[in-house]
């Protein structure tokens, strides 16, 4: 039964790849409209200056930076999990490999855009390369992101080669001619010979092996950008592993949501099974425990610190007129809820896991907000001008418009990519597993 299904996997995706229907166009239109509003907001910001944002001299970073950290986390998570699945040969993870790769690339594009809109003079961005100081953690991050983007784009292409070859050779495919040419070029003359299989497999292994450490290093560097600052809430040696853990955590939560959407829309119940949700749910449970442990370690260390400013910062997390609700939601959704919902079998279902995943993604965005904004609002040396709008940060419509545009771009990438090729790596699915396949072993 399974082998029959395997042979027909590509056929199942063909209707989604062929000429788009009205729903698809409507979705793209809505997403483009949201991106358009975001572009308008960006032009407005360029014209009026950063004054149209909530950022001021005291709180110099805002929602843009929160989004940057959040999307970079998703990208590194995608790269890391995808790389581990590939190298480890976990056959049960195959349906989600391509989704992970798309998450990686899209986030790697969206994330740094938020830094470009955050800096007041985007035309000066190239100065980062012209006047780079290798001692600066910002330059480390720039190098890491650029390298990672290169590696991931190439790796994504490698994972598409066999599917492009299949689509190139698929009979009676109702698509435009330019797309047929596109498949032909991108398939790189692949014909699935033994030698070609070996070469492609080697290349994929090499790329997967580079991507794993690159993702860890790159997200650690981002964590050090904060950890190396002498600021309450930032100056913390735990930040690098904490960031990597949060990235993997949010990445897995997001992939559960994406899997669920595609399972519903493309009717992939044969391909994406309940066990996938269960397995990823168990991973969420484990990560929730680790996340809770790391969060507690972070706050207890800060709390025990005798510095007065640290106490002021932590008091803001307990004050419901300041960040109390955000702090409570963030910790409850990310550290406690998964333990209840996934840990107790009676509560565990696909829906509950998906809803929990959504709340985890939201909670981890809030966590990034709590890392960036309250720390900036609580400097060791307070500013002299104490106007409230200078001391406290509040995001403006411009920032929210650009945030929504970033999310819309992220969704659009999935909508477009799933139209170019199957959202599931068909060739991998059809291939018999040579590596670890404990999913099917344990679930006979």
């Amino acid at each position, binding site marked *: 039964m399974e082998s029959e299904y395997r042979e027909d996997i590509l056929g199942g995706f063909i209707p989604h790849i062929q000429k788009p229907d009205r729903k698809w166009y409507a979705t793209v239109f809505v997403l483009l409209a949201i991106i358009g509003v975001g572009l308008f907001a960006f032009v407005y910001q360029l014209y009026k200056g950063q004054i149209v944002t909530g950022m001021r001299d005291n709180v110099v970073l805002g929602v843009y930076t929160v989004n940057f950290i959040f999307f970079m986390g998703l990208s590194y998570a995608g790269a890391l999990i995808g790389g581990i699945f590939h190298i480890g040969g976990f056959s049960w993870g195959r349906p989600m490999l391509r989704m992970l790769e798309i998450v990686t690339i899209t986030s790697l594009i969206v994330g740094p855009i938020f830094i470009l809109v955050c800096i007041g003079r985007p035309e000066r961005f190239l100065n980062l390369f012209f006047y780079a100081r290798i001692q600066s953690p910002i330059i480390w991050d720039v190098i890491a992101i650029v390298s990672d983007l290169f590696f991931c784009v190439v790796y994504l292409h490698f994972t598409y080669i066999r599917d492009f070859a299949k689509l190139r050779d698929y009979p009676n495919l109702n698509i435009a001619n330019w797309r047929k040419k596109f498949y032909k070029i991108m398939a790189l003359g692949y014909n699935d010979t033994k030698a070609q299989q070996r070469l*492609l497999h080697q*290349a994929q292994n*090499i790329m997967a092996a580079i991507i794993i450490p690159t993702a860890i290093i790159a997200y650690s560097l981002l964590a050090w950008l904060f950890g190396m600052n002498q600021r309450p809430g930032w100056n913390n040696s735990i930040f690098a592993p904490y960031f990597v853990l949060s990235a993997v955590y949010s990445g897995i939560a997001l992939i559960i949501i994406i899997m669920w959407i595609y399972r519903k829309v493309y009717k992939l119940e044969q391909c994406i099974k309940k066990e996938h949700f269960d397995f990823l749910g168990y991973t969420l449970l484990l990560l929730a425990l680790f996340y809770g442990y790391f969060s507690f370690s972070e706050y207890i260390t800060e709390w025990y610190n005798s510095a007065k400013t640290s106490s002021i910062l932590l008091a803001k997390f307990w004050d419901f007129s300041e960040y109390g609700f955000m702090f409570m939601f963030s910790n409850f959704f990310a550290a406690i809820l998964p333990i209840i919902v996934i840990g107790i079998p009676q509560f565990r279902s696909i829906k509950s896991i998906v809803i929990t995943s959504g709340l985890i993604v939201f909670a981890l965005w809030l966590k990034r907000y709590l890392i960036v904004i309250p720390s900036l609002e609580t400097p060791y040396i307070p500013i002299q001008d104490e106007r409230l709008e200078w001391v406290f940060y509040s995001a403006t419509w411009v920032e929210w418009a650009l945030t929504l545009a970033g999310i819309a771009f992220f969704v659009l990438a999935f909508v477009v990519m799933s139209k170019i090729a199957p959202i599931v790596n068909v060739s991998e699915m059809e291939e018999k597993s040579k590596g670890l396949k404990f999913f099917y072993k344990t679930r006979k």
Partner: protein
Amino acid sequence: MKIKEILFSVSFVMFLISNMAVAQENEIKPKKVRLKLEYIKLPNGTKVLNAKMYWKDGKEFNAVVDQDVMFAAVGDSVELKLATIKSNKEGFAKLYIEKDFKFPINEEGFTSFTAKMNKSTQFKRAKKTINIKDAELDFTLNEIDSVKIIELNVSSFGTDGEIVPVNRAEVNVYVKRLHSLYEIKKGATNENGFFSAVFPEDMPGDSTGNVTIIVKVLDSDDYGTIEKVQNIKWGTIVSYAEEEHVRTLWTGEAPVWMIIAVCVILLGAWFNFALAIYKVSKIKNAV
């Protein structure tokens, strides 16, 4: 009826009394001020009258700020009003008097210095008087058989103006350090007004060996505080030139280890990337 009237009258009177008591409690009572007065003779001969005023609130001491303090000098029934100075935010009112200014003195050569603060709505009247006799502190720095010796004399004036050595004056000998004074020796003068101290051999000086030696008669009841200062090359030479950091995080050139680490990581990653590309480039021709 009468009883009612009496009761009413009594309660009315009690009401008035209680209100008066409350009103009295609400009135701001002038606070008692504590006043300290010091006489300091600086190395250049300038005299300083330093009045410090504070008031106590429970266990807390608070400075008396922005109040007029009148200084006066009295000697042999002649009172000389010196000046009126406002206290600063630390509660100090300082009067600097020129080296050659003549104070009135009594038969024994003493001058009574007075600092006085008049009563105000906030504070009660405060006054302090000290009796000071002018004295001289001289010191010489001698090196005998490689032993560096500080010799000092404290003297005053007799009733006929003759110089009289001061016996049992408490004196301190210091070396000036960056943030404080390092005490070399303290003790009392002998009957000849003499005191000596040996300067330590290994006392660090500046880049040329200079040290600043300070001697003091400290807070004497009769002579106040007297200070004298001299510079001499008695210290060991210390080089304070900072070593130049050529390759550090804050200079233009990154540390070597960092450049090597970055190069190794990048070369390693990009080499593997190139290898993967090479493998894929061979796909087309692979059979």
